[in-house]
């Protein structure tokens, strides 16, 4: 019972989603399922927020190493939620909205939530990703070594594409005779980069794509037929 009903739910909803592609009569049912999906997934996400609180509260109560940082996380979490839900700093934007103090857009420029996004969220996340530029450089120096044929292919392609991505590629045309009048200068490395993109990169990625597609189709079918129940977890 504890697993039969969920398997039935998954199968019925999944079948509706598929059959609606072939029968317009089922399209409204599919639209309802999609609408419900959004709502269910959103509420389920709140569970993630609850888990975050439980995890960090436990860290604080157990006085684990770095519990102070857990406190910072919780404080920033609750401040963000409070500022966003209370719409602090939001003002009505139209005559209609003036009568309803809570009606302005929650991300309005100048509001508290906008400030958090602009001056806390945005700089921290983008700088964290920017750090990778340094580590990629370090890895290029230390780990990107021509040890065997596969590594040599990887390395040479990376070098060609690195040159081909900036105008430095034009250096490769310096050794060529000038083009005929009205014709563009031939840039060998640009052509080579384009050839690699059109052939090897496209082909490699296409093969990966075909493999993934077959995997997704097989897994989806197993779920819809009730053969794969791993997503339901263990017995409880």
């Amino acid at each position, binding site marked *: 019972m504890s697993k039969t009903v969920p*398997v039935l*739910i998954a199968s019925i*909803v*999944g079948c509706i989603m598929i059959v609606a592609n072939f029968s317009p009569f089922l399209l409204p049912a599919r639209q309802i399922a999609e609408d419900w999906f959004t*709502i*269910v997934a*959103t509420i*389920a996400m709140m*569970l993630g927020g*609850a888990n975050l609180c439980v995890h960090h509260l436990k860290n604080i109560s157990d006085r684990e190493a*770095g519990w102070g*940082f857990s406190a*910072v996380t*919780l*404080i*920033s*979490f609750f401040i*963000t*939620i409070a500022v*966003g*839900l209370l719409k602090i700093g939001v003002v*009505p*934007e139209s005559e209609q909205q003036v009568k*309803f103090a809570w*009606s302005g857009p929650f991300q309005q*420029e100048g509001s508290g939530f906008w400030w958090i*996004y602009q001056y*806390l*969220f945005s*700089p*921290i996340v983008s*700088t964290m990703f*920017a*750090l*990778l*530029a*340094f580590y990629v450089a370090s890895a290029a120096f230390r780990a990107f070594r021509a040890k065997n044929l*596969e*590594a040599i*292919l*990887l390395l040479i*392609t*990376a070098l060609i*594409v*690195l040159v081909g991505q900036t105008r430095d590629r034009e250096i490769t045309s310096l050794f060529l005779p000038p083009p005929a009048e009205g014709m563009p200068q031939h840039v060998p490395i640009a052509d080579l980069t384009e050839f*690699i*993109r059109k*052939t*090897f*990169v*496209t*082909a490699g990625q*296409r*093969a*990966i794509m075909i*493999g*993934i*597609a077959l995997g997704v189709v097989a897994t989806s079918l197993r779920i819809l037929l009730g053969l794969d129940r791993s997503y*339901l977890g263990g017995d*409880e």
Partner: protein
Amino acid sequence: MNRETRFWTVMFLGGCLFLAFQSLGTARGVGQQFVVRVDATTGKIIPPATGASDASSAVKTVIYEPASKDDPEAIWSFSRTAGIWIAALLTLCIFSYLYRDNVCYKLAESIIVGVSAGYWIVTNFWEVLVAKVLVKLAPNVARYSFLPDTPVDVKADYLYIVPVVLGCMVFCRLIPKIAWMGRWPLAFVVGTTAGLKLTSFLDADFVRQVRSTILPLVVFSANASDVSTLDWKQSIQNIVIVISVLSCVTYFYFSVEHKGLVGRISRVGIWVLMISFGASFALTVMGRITLLTMRLQFLFDDWLGLVRI
């Protein structure tokens, strides 16, 4: 005081002196932000308030738009100036990790975990729970609270209680006795996704990709005088694509042992994949460097004002 501490103390004091000089000695200052007051309902700029009796102070819908310092109606913005400073200091906190893991980095990391989780919850609360669920279940409440533009003829659709209840069942997972009920919403989400992906992946990523690989190996094209000639460039390209895709797919086919001919073909597949990953590496480098450029532009333009972009 060891050599390292001495070095960083000198760097810190030097930085402070530079900031003081830049703040006081230059017209642009450091991170100074100016705004103009705008009436949100009319879009008109409100001149800076001159006192409590000023008519502009009665306007309830004042929003602030960024402005140049030279604008006669511009006023200094404390919140935005503080924001630029905080953003710059947090940027430096993250960059400090390059030297070594430290408290400043951990602090910024902890802030972002909380802010990100809060951001997602708030956004989904307003965009889904209010804009979708509340409008469907109680349109009048939505109209008289958060969304005054909700049409008056919208009728409540109580069917939306079902996804709300289903969604709330997720929290059953926190109570061991009824944890099994938490599987229902999960099954709904998994079933919808499986049904949606099955046809889409089959169509866009399998059938279409196979079709795009079925290419003529010898291509003829008409030249200027309408004579059909061998297009050797396109022919080579097509041959390489077909051979590369087939060899890569062979490499991914694990039901047959990679020996003999299959082994040789799959080896070609590995080479193709390596070339593909090499290009991915170079393109990834491009993205990360651009991001670093953006952060440095922020520090040196928006904050320090050393360049004007």
